[in-house]
Structure formats: C-alpha cells, structure tokens
C-alpha cells in the first residue's frame, strides 16, 4: 500500500486532478457564447474594410447603402468621433514612446489593408453586407511601408505623416563590462534571427453585443474578453458614461491567449453604434476579418553576439532586437511589451554578468501587434538557446553539458538576471536532470547516429526557459494604465450551506473556475460540487485584473484562498457560539463542523446557515453573523513570480522535401504549487502546440503592397492534431513563498520554449549537411533553401 499523503485528507483538492465543472456543459453544446446572445430589437453591424495598406479617404458615397431596406445606420469616422474620445497606446514607463491617437473609425486616412473604414448597422448581418457592396469610397493611395527593415531606413516615407519618424520606441540595457568580456573571450558566436508574424486564431472569434439604454443611461456590453473590468473602465471613460452605469459581461469564451484583452476599433465602434441607435448591436468578426483585424504578434529581427570562455562558460551577450508593430501601438497595454520582454528575457536562465541590449520598435502599414501567449518569451528563448547550441558546437560540448555548466545553480537563490529581473527560487539544474531522464537522452543520441548511417536525419533539441507570471503593478500600473494587478472575491455561505464565490479572475476555457472551486472547497472543508464560482460580470464580482500574464492561479487563487479562510473563521465563530466552544477547537470537514482534535462531527454548516439567516433570534444578543466576506489580494514581495523549465524535442527532417516530422516532445516545468495537475498538463500541452505552430506552420505573409496573402484558415496553417507529437510532461514544484498558496503561472510555459526547441532540433538534424536555419517558421522552402536543393 502506498503511504497516505496530504491528498488523502478529506476535501483536499489542492494538488488533485479533478475534472472542470464546466467541461461537460461546454462539450454538450450548452455553452453560452456572445454569438449565442439574441436580445430583443438587436441589430447587426458589418464593416467596410480598406483594400489599401495606406491611403487617403478622398470621398465617401453611402447614399445607396443608407437607402437599402433593413439598414438602420451607416456611420463614418466623424459620426463616432462626436461621441467617443480618442485613445493613445502609450504608457509612461516606456520613456519616449509615441503613437498616434486612435478613433473607432478613421477620419481621413487608412493605415493598413483590412482596417475598418465605415460601419453599417442593419436588421441582419447579411443585409448589412449587402449594404457594404453599395458603398463607394475613393481612395488616394499613399506609399505603404510594409517591411520591418524598410520602415527603419532613414528617408523612408512615414507611416504617420504627423510623426517625426517611424520609430515608436527605443530602449537600451547595459549591465557594463560587455566590451571587456568580448575582448577577453575565447570564442564569439554571432547570429541573426528572424521571427515571422503570427496571430492567435482562437476557436471563438472576437464577438460583442453592446446594448445602450438611453432612458437609464446604462450601457451593457456582452463581450468576449479576458478583462471585463478593463473594458468597463474604457467604455466609461471614452464614452463618458459613469462607471457604475457600465456593465461588461464576459460569458463563455472560446479561447483568448491575449487576443481578447486589447481595444479593437470595431468593438469600440459597436458601443458607439448602440449609443447612436439606442438599440443592441452585435458584431462577430468572421474568420477573414479576424486575420486582418485581430492583433498579430512576434515579427522580430534579432542580431545576437555571445562571448564564451575556452571551457564554454558564457561571459556576455550583446543583442539588438528590431520589431515592427503595425501603424499604431495597441491600447491600453501598448505594442512594445513584447520587445521589452525579449531584451529582458534573453539569457535569463544563465549565470553571467555582462549584458547589453538595444530595442527598436517601428511602425509599418500592417495591423497592430500586441500581447499574445508567452509575450516575447519564444523569441528570447529561441535566440538564447540557439546561441547556446552554437556555442556548444563551437567548442564540442554536448547541449546538456553546456547548459549544466551555465544555468544559474539551484542553490544560488535569491538572485537576479543581468537585466534586473529578480528570481526568488528556480530549479534549472533539477529540471535539466529530469529532462535527460524522461527523454532517455543517451538512447536517443544512439538511435540518431545509427539512423544517420541509413540516410534518416533526426535531430534532438533542448531549450531552457524562464516565464514571467503573477505580475505586480510594476507591469502596467506604474505606466499609468488602469489595469489592476489585484483581484477581489466575494464569498458567501448560502442558506442551504453551500458556497458561492464571485471572483474577478475570468475563464476562457483554461479551467480558472475549476481551480477556484478547488481552492475554496479545500480551504473551507467542503465537497467541490458545493462550491459555485461566478466570474466575468462587472455587476457581480469585485474589481480585479482578471486573467492574463499567467496570474489566474497565483493571484486569483490566493485571493480565493484568503477569502475562504476568512469565511471559515466567520462560520466557526457562529458555530462556537451555538456549540458553546472556542472557535479554535472546531474545524470544518465535508460541510460539517467537527471537533478539531477528534474530528467528531458536531453540526452541519447548513444548520449554521439556517440559524444565521432565519433564526438569528436564537443567537446571543449582539451577534451579527457575517456569512458573506470580500477579500482583495495584490501581489507583494517579488514584482513577478518567475517560473522555469526545460523542453526537449525529437524531429525528423526529410532532406529531399524539406518536410519536418515532430516525433516527440518533452517538458519539465516548475510552476510552484500545482493546484490541478491535469489542468496544468493541458495548459502546458496547449501551449506547446501553439509554440509548435509558430515553429513550423504559422506566418502572416504579406505582399509588397501590404496585402495579407494568407488570411484564411485554408492558407494560414494552424497546428492540427495529426501533425502533433506526443508531449511528455514532468513537474518540479518550487512554491513561491510570497503567498500562502505558493502557486505561480503555467499557461505560457509551453509556448515559451517549444519553437526554440524545434529550431535547435532541426539544426541538429541538418548538422551533417553543414546547413543551418535561424528563422521561424521553419517551412519546407526554408529547409530546402538551406540545403541548396532548388
């Protein structure tokens, strides 16, 4: 018999794989997404989109569209500008950053192909689209700046004629000692990398129903978003409606990955259209619109140099990252966070002192880029890990050996990266060792060399990473953004003795509600099915940051934990009065108040609820039972809870076709306290798959005039099950001491290193050909080109 563990304690849900309560409902098709919402008198919006990447709007003729039966409104940029104040996607802590003010629809100039120009509101979406065909717009084409390098060249026409250049933001980091380190290095590795633009592609596209009631002056927005409170604030301020009269409801969400926390022009417009009409207006982006109007991400060119000594110790790194973000910086989180994280995360797993980095963020005539799952991490990781592999190859070290030599030792914490990130406690050495075991690395190497004799080219790649989770106000708050880093929960004992927890973190399919109910049930001493979790409605839950940057478990979870402890204390206080005991002598197990020492049941908490709610006359005079409590929690201590891990993969390259087969993928991950192992594994797997998509398939390809060439699911390749390898996962648990729960984030870890790992593996496979690739996605064309096959 295996010995008892803490999981054998009654109601111990923290650390247990329990299914998500909402999974069956969603599987059975009972989900209620924004698309499913049909309100009385609801109208439908459609947008006319710019065919040009850059043009002046010379003349607009909407008469025929207005005259079409079933059309209620054709709105121009000027119509909406009358009621909506402009927004600017800059933050104060990004010194010197610029971006043009934005409006829901442009007044006189379009800046990317696919930008919404005019809105039509009609009885049905089909009628609205009929009306779009009746609109004529005369455009005067302006020079389109498409390519990242072209945008940076002096003398290039400007994306925003009012600006002084195409530079949005520049940043520099320098720890000192870099030139000296390079001067004394035994070897210097240099490489250039390019990372394609890609886009999140959620199953559920962006969707919004705005419902303005002019009589009550009340705006209700049903919005497929991660961050209802952020949007409550924005709709309130930009449409000048008092905050308390704006309600944002995020019902079931079909995936978000960062996509659904940015302000989109169409979404802002829909709110304005509802205000202009006094009727509910719905807009659901179709897949073609999603490709040209959802945020994109990545699109970086990185030059990197690494200095190593004769033994393969990293001495210094010097990098330059240039990234193009579209014509605007996204609001309210900006489009420079990715580049900022790239230059700060490069080299982060390794123990070296001298680091210098420059970042250049430029405008171009494309749709804007912004935060998407694992913001910046995949780029930083790919650059670092490829450089480490190149260094290993230079001096004939094995990839495991060079990493073992250079990772920050597990006993060196607390410590900081040369870029100033503070690490509480990471576990690179243990993870490295674990990965070697689960990969059966030596056997893989033996198989690889045996197969090479037979002309089969397999490659092994590994990639170490750190991930930023649990962000404090240092992330956005300090820059002036009204984006909360705290969360709030209101938790009640119902009259029947069940528990209801309304919490500001949100659910997009990852299982937030499941882990919150696990934590509450665990802390209170209840069966999980007696805890109902409510999320996603600003009218119902306290204000909070919601779900992004891997904060749901670490911050939301701690909020729920503390709230549940408070409620438990209040329940036991009443129980003690009823039972004439000291509260400390009592506990709750399985919904029963028990003797803390003997676990003897004394009284059901349902009985306490009954007495408190219906027979308060039987309680001692002066007793006021507090069976609803609220609690807020903001992270303190470390500004971020860093996690770490390492991935490995095994691939086969067909040297004649350039096709790559993913044979197996491995992850060792340390996200601190694991609340639900099954959900963590699925987060890691999903994240890895998105990273593998970036590695091999996904790229927004543009033509010379700035047209997106592959903006459909037939042409933009997302990873699909048939091409995905088995993903083997192992865990190391190093809880953060900053919270009682000890949880850090895990949602972006998979994405952070998967593409780096594949890049290394493919290069390992190509090594016998003396060919190398330093660009993702690694397409057959790039492989064949590297091999000189055509």
């Amino acid at each position: 018999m295996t010995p008892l563990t803490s999981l054998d304690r009654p109601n111990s849900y923290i650390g247990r794989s329990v299914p998500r309560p909402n999974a069956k409902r969603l599987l059975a098709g009972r989900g209620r997404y924004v698309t499913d919402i049909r309100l009385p008198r609801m109208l439908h919006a459609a947008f006319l989109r710019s065919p040009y990447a850059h043009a002046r709007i010379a003349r607009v003729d909407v008469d025929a569209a207005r005259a079409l039966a079933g059309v209620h409104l054709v709105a121009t940029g000027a119509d909406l500008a009358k009621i909506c104040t402009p927004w600017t996607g800059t933050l104060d802590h990004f010194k010197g950053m610029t971006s043009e003010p934005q409006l829901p629809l442009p007044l006189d100039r379009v800046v990317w192909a696919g930008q919404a120009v005019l809105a039509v509101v009609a009885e049905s979406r089909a009628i609205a689209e009929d009306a779009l065909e009746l609109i004529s717009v005369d455009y005067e084409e302006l020079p389109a700046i498409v390519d990242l390098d072209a945008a940076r060249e002096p003398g290039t026409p400007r994306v925003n004629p009012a600006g002084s250049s195409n530079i949005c933001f520049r940043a520099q980091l320098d720890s000192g000692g870099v030139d000296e380190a390079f001067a004394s290095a035994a070897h210097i590795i240099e490489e250039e990398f390019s990372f394609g633009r890609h886009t999140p592609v959620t199953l559920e596209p962006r969707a919004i129903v705005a419902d303005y009631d002019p009589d009550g002056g009340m705006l209700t927005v049903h919005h497929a978003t991660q961050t209802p409170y952020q949007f409550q604030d924005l709709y309130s301020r930009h449409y000048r409606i008092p905050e308390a009269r704006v309600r944002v409801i995020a019902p079931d969400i079909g995936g978000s990955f960062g996509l659904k926390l940015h302000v989109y022009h169409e979404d802002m417009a829909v709110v304005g259209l509802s205000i202009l009409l006094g009727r509910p207006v719905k807009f659901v982006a179709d897949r073609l619109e999603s490709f040209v109007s959802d945020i994109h991400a990545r699109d970086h060119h990185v030059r990197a140099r690494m200095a190593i000594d004769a033994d393969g110790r990293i001495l210094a790194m010097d990098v330059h990252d240039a990234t193009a973000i579209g014509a605007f910086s996204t609001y309210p989180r900006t489009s420079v966070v990715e580049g900022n994280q790239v230059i700060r995360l490069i080299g982060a797993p390794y123990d070296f002192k001298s680091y210098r980095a420059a970042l250049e963020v430029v405008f171009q005539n494309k749709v804007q880029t912004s935060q998407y799952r694992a913001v910046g991490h995949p780029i930083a990781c790919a650059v670092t890990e490829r450089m480490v592999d190149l260094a290993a190859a230079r001096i004939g070290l094995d990839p495991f050996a060079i990493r073992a030599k250079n990772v920050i030792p597990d006993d060196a914490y607390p410590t900081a990266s040369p870029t100033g990130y503070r690490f509480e406690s990471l576990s690179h050495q243990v993870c490295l060792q674990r990965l070697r075991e689960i990969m059966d690395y030596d056997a893989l190497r033996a198989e690889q060399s045996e197969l090479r004799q037979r002309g089969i080219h397999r490659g092994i790649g590994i990639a170490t990473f750190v991930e930023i989770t649990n962000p404090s106000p240092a992330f956005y708050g300090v820059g002036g953004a009204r984006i909360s880093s705290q969360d709030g929960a209101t938790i009640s004992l119902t009259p029947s003795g069940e528990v209801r927890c309304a919490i500001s973190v949100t659910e997009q399919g990852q299982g937030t509600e499941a882990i919150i109910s696990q934590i509450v049930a665990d802390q209170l001493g209840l069966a999980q099915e007696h805890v109902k979790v409510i999320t996603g409605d600003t009218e119902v839950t306290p204000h909070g940051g919601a779900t992004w940057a891997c904060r749901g478990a670490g911050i939301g979870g701690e909020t729920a934990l503390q709230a549940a402890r408070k409620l438990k204390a209040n329940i036991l206080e009443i129980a003690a009065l009823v039972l004439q005991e000291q509260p400390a002598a009592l506990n709750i197990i399985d919904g029963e108040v028990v003797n803390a020492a003997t676990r003897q049941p004394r009284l059901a908490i349902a009985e306490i609820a009954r007495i408190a709610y219906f027979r308060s006359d039987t309680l001692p005079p002066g007793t006021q039972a507090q069976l609803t409590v609220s609690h807020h929690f903001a992270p303190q201590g470390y500004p971020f809870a860093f996690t770490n891990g390492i991935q490995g993969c095994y691939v086969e390259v067909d040297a004649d076709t350039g096709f790559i087969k993913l044979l197996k993928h491995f992850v060792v991950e340390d996200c601190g306290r694991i609340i639900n192992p099954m959900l963590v594994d699925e987060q890691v797997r999903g994240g890895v798959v998105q990273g593998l998509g970036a590695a091999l398939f996904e790229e927004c390809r543009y033509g010379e005039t700035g047209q997106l060439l592959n903006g459909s699911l037939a042409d933009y390749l997302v990873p699909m099950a048939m091409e995905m390898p088995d993903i083997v996962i192992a865990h190391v648990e190093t809880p953060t001491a900053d919270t009682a729960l000890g949880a850090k984030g895990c949602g972006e870890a998979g994405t952070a290193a998967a593409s780096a790992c594949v890049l290394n593996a493919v290069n390992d496979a190509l090594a016998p050909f003396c060919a190398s690739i330093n660009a993702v996605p690694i397409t057959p064309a790039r492989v064949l080109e590297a091999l000189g096959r055509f």
Partner: protein
Amino acid sequence: MKARAFSYRRAYTVDEALDAHASNGDDARFIAGGQSLVPALALRLQAPRILIDINHIEELRGVTREGEWLRIGALTRHCEMLTEPLIAEFAPLLRAAAPFVAHPAIRNRGTLGGSVALADPASEFPAMMLALDAEIEIAGASGRRRVRADEFFIDLFETAAAPGELVTAIFVPRFRCNQRICFDELARRRGDYALVGCGMQATCKDGLIEGIRIAFFSVGNVPTRARSAEAAVSGGRIDAERIAAAQAALDSDLAPPESDEVPPAMRLHLARVLLGRLLGRLGEVA
C-alpha cells in the same frame, strides 16, 4: 460573411435540372455536395440568383459495372470511394487517393462529379481521371456525350462541360490484374491541398512497364499528365536510371506557376522527388 440571398430549386431529373439552369442563364449554379460552392457563396465570391439542387436526381447515384467500364454516378460521395467494394476492385486508384481529399466531414458530402466538374487543379480526383484514362459523361441541351479526361480539362476551372451542362457520371476502364497503381502527395498537414501530388497507373508484363499514365496535381492551371516522364519509364523495367530519366523529363512536362509560398523551382523539385519515390514503389510491385 454571409451569402447574398438566393433562391433554391430542387431537381428530380437531369432534364429538370438542365431546364432550370437554362431558364436562369448565368445566374444559376448546380449544387452537389456544396463543399466548394457553399464556401464560395459565404465569401461572396459567387452570388448566383438560384441554386439548383441535384442531390435528389436518382440517376446520378450509384456505382455499377457496365461491361469493361465502371460507371460512377456523379453524386457518389468522396467517402464512398473508401467504402464501395466495386471501387476498391475496379478503380483502386480512386480509393488510394480518397484519404487525402480533405477531412471526413467534407468527404461525407463532397461528390466525385462536383470535384471533376469544378476541376480545381489542386484536387486529387480530377488528376486521377487522367491517370485512369476515364471518360466523363456530360448531359447538355443537345443530349449526352462522353469526353475523355485528356480532353476534358481545358484551363483553370474550365472544362469540356459548358456552364449549364451537367456531369452525370464518370466511366473508368475496369482495373485489370496486370495493372499497378501508386499515389502520394506532399501536403503540409493531413487533409490540406497538396504542394504537389501524383497518381499513376501502369500496365505491366513480366516485370516490364508496358504502358503508364502519370498525372500530377497542384502543378499548374489544370491537372497535368507527365507524358515525357511516362515515355521515359515505358517499355522497360523500372530502375534507378529510368527513374532519373523520368525525373529529368518532368522539366518539359510541368511548368509550375509563380506563388508566394512555393517558388516554381521548388515545386518542380518536389514533383521530381515525389515522382522518384512513387516510381520506386511501383518498381517493387511491377
């Protein structure tokens, strides 16, 4: 996007369908499985005034033997290529190609007649018509006629069936025991349209290739026979030398167009690799 409004007419006979089309001219479209047409409507790439549903025309269904031919009704679904015993026995190349056509949900609805009539150069079945030396039966105002696949595919989405004419059946010469087939394609993901694909059917005698038909798809405006490559491997045993000759001959058989993702030289290279692999496999079973 949502399709523009259209009206709908269900036809029960071939004549009814032809008449309905004739009376609506350019504004009408036949709808079979809808797996190409419906997306085109939803994207407003096509906006016919009327759809004429041919799914209820009994005569367009069924797979039967007619002497030396296998008659495959135009409405035969892609999935039936995988399950119909007569196809496995008498047209195994179609069976070999079918798993590569899209995904199960699409194969459940998509029809062979629709695929051949549409003549997408990236599609598997139209090219297999060439490899099989099949004949396409067309019904039009002047009655029925059968057109050899070699004469059927004219240009991009243009075939010997004029607008308003109906493809009623495909006739495939029945497969004989001295014939061999091979099929494969290079697609980024399972079910995608291929970067390049190829099917072939050879007639063998004593290990020699008596005759062979090699058809490529995704290489240009129309499904394309590789006649020089066919000549290079005919009349002898398949060996490394003949394979190399056939691969070299592809230069004159194929002229892939410019494309942003797959440059012509790369597509030609992939076609050569694929041809080499398929001929190698064929050589093992000849």
